């Protein structure tokens, strides 16, 4: 059972990683709106993407 002395700290490191990922996602706004993104996959998007992205403007 001595393996537990290694496995448990390893598990805690993984938990720490998961928690860090969750914190990052929260800060990034991934949990701010849980409803509407689900709808975007349902739409048949025939319209071209927006043509006025700031990046494109900079290039012109």
């Amino acid at each position: 059972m001595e393996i537990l002395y290694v496995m448990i700290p390893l598990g805690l490191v993984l938990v720490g990683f998961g928690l860090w990922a969750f914190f990052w996602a929260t800060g990034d706004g991934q949990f701010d709106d849980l409803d509407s993104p689900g709808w975007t996959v349902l739409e048949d998007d025939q319209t071209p993407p927006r043509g006025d992205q700031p990046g494109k403007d900079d290039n012109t």
Partner: protein
Amino acid sequence: MSAAGAPCFHCGEPIPRGLVIHARVAGRDEPVCCHGCKAVAEFITGAGLGDYYRYRDTASTRADEPPRPDRWAAYDRPELVERLTRAEPGGARSITVLLEGLRCAACSWLADKALSLQSGVLDVSVNPATARARLVWDPAKVRLGDLLRVLEHVGLRPHPLAGEPSEQLALLERRAALKRLAVAGFGNMQVMMFAVPLYFGEAQGMDPAMREYMRLVSMLVSVPVALYAGWPFYQGAWHALRARSVSMDVPVSLGIVLAFVASVWNALTGRGEVYFDSVTMFVFFLGLGRYIEMIARHRAGSVADALARLAPMTARRVRGGVTEDVQALELAVGDEIVVRTGEVFPADGAVVEGEGRVDESMLTGESTAAPKPPGSRVHQGTHNLGAPLRVRVGAVAGNTVLSGIIALLERAQAERPRLAKAADRAAAWFLGRILVGAALVFAVWWFVDPGRAFPAALAVLVVTCPCALSLATPTALAAATSSLARRGILVAHTDAIETLSKATHVLWDKTGTLTKGLVRVEEVRCAGDVTATQALAWATALEQMSEHPIARAFPGSGAATDRATEVEVCAGRGLEGRIAERRLRIGTRAFAAGLPGAPAAAAEDGSLAEAGSRESWVYLGDRTGLLAAFRLTDPLRAEARDCVARLADLGLPSEIVSGDEASAVARIAERCGIERHSARLAPRDKLGRLKALQGEGAVVVAVGDGINDAPLLRGADVAIAMGRGSALAQTSADLILVRDSLEDLPHTIELARRTQRVVRQNLAWSIAYNLAALPLAALGYVPPWLAAIGMSLSSVVVVLNAMRLSRGSPRQPRPRWPAAPEAEAA
């Protein structure tokens, strides 16, 4: 007239019989109830956004009137927009807009799509949970006014929010709470994993070094849970103690701290029990309940949002003969402003010029417009229905009547005396018992064996606090709140669930709660050979020229032949006009029958003569006398009668307190089966009636929707607001019926009672278990493995019992729309 055939394609309201309006949607004609809905439906499908109708899960808000493009004229002026909005990189501007009528995820998709199709829009983010959209656009390519017009065209009424929005603060608060919840949840899972081998190790014999190791690891994981995730509880407790009161946070914090400190001590010294699993589970479930509550509160909105919805941000100022658009905030006392027909007053003041009629229903609850001759006072937030008015500003910003009401509500909301008191009594009672019990144990052991007095007293505190208080109440409340949220009932204050289960009376404000709050034509009576359809078409053609609230009852016929010309408004009496060579009058009985040439004793037809109360009847007449009479009512909600009956079954008699006419109140009361009702009450009188009931020991639920109900809602033991009601009513409510259906109300009360039962069962079980197990264990009669299993089972039983609440009730009413209301719950 009653609903016939299919409901309106857009808003789902019944279409008045005889009325034929079709919206051209995807190559098919769909029936709609009014021209407002027709315009919105055709705009949406015309813009290629017809998918909205496939994906939405609740009907849309009725578009009362076709969009008015001139409403947003002020937002077309760059210098004004610059002062109202925030600068973004690259010369772009951004603003947060509150969207009235945003009710589901499909609505937010619609808003997002409609705006994204506009050129010059750089970014749109719509949050359906808070009904807000953040727009970033390039002012060189598109005007803000145009974007607001687009939103109005798709049936969502935008309210631009000035300055740094409270939304940002709320967002940060939500994120912080979510992080704390994650720490508590992850931590709890880990500690549970270590707790199981510890429990079974006790039974089967465990290597002491491994036991020691497990306990120390549990402690390590529990530290962030207790310190970081539990921090808000300590803060709350500290604030309460500094204010010399006891809130729910005090025993909660005491429980966490004592159990945690005792466990840390035991883990470090290697003796006694550790309670890390209890501590972390406690923090997690309490945190979960608070998180759900906070989401509901944010959804209900803040007082600042309410103000934004009520008062315009711009004004039209006249200075030296020049009219200019300015920010409402820039107005000063003594300025002169012009308020055109259909606009909302940006400040309090006195009429200088013009003869107006003003809809003051938001302040007074009076549904008929008040005449405003020069010299009379007008108030911020009220609606000008008559001729354009020139107004000298008398009070601005924080000094208006409206902001006075709002400030009052803000204070009341911050203090929330009644709810706090109820919770505090329970908390103080529980805390008192536990402390007395612990003191007794300490005293007894002091005489028996002083060395064991402290550990024994600590054991009592530790075991009773987390087990009973931690799991019994929060798990039940969390399950009930989320179950209600799934049905579209938002609980802004969880304490309300407890109060609601004890409720004895229901007070209704009639308009907007029992009724729909919209005046519609209910019945048409005709004289001679005029058909109802013809009469209605004529009336509609005339009324379309009017801004009077009654005019909205006539939904428009759409027939091009019926166009009224030469329309004149006779204030307080009605309208006169010409339709296809026929002079017609509509209005009061005397007015309609009084056209020159009409017989003196105008057409005393039996069916028209019996039409009683003047308030709710409108007459149509021509030179031959009276042609038709229309009965206008604010229609009863279909589910109102059933709701009142079911409430009565639950032992809650209903009573109406209304500001409306006695006859109208009596009719509604009779049709709902309500015996007690009082009419023509000012907000203060409503509050008086409420206090009288409470004085008799009643626990009163108040249901309201208007601003004039806010005092009533504030005074009630439990306040319930309707989903389509005013924002101000919602901010003072404990529960909000988001789906705007009364069907949910009896269910809510049933669920509140079941919740209370579950809480009591859980408390009884926990206390019984502790009472039985603790002394036996202390005296050494219970082997540790049995205590461990019992402890876990005790917690599991409590949690499972609470989870019963999240399942549907046995008497589940059918949803009004084939809806999956989860979208609104978030």
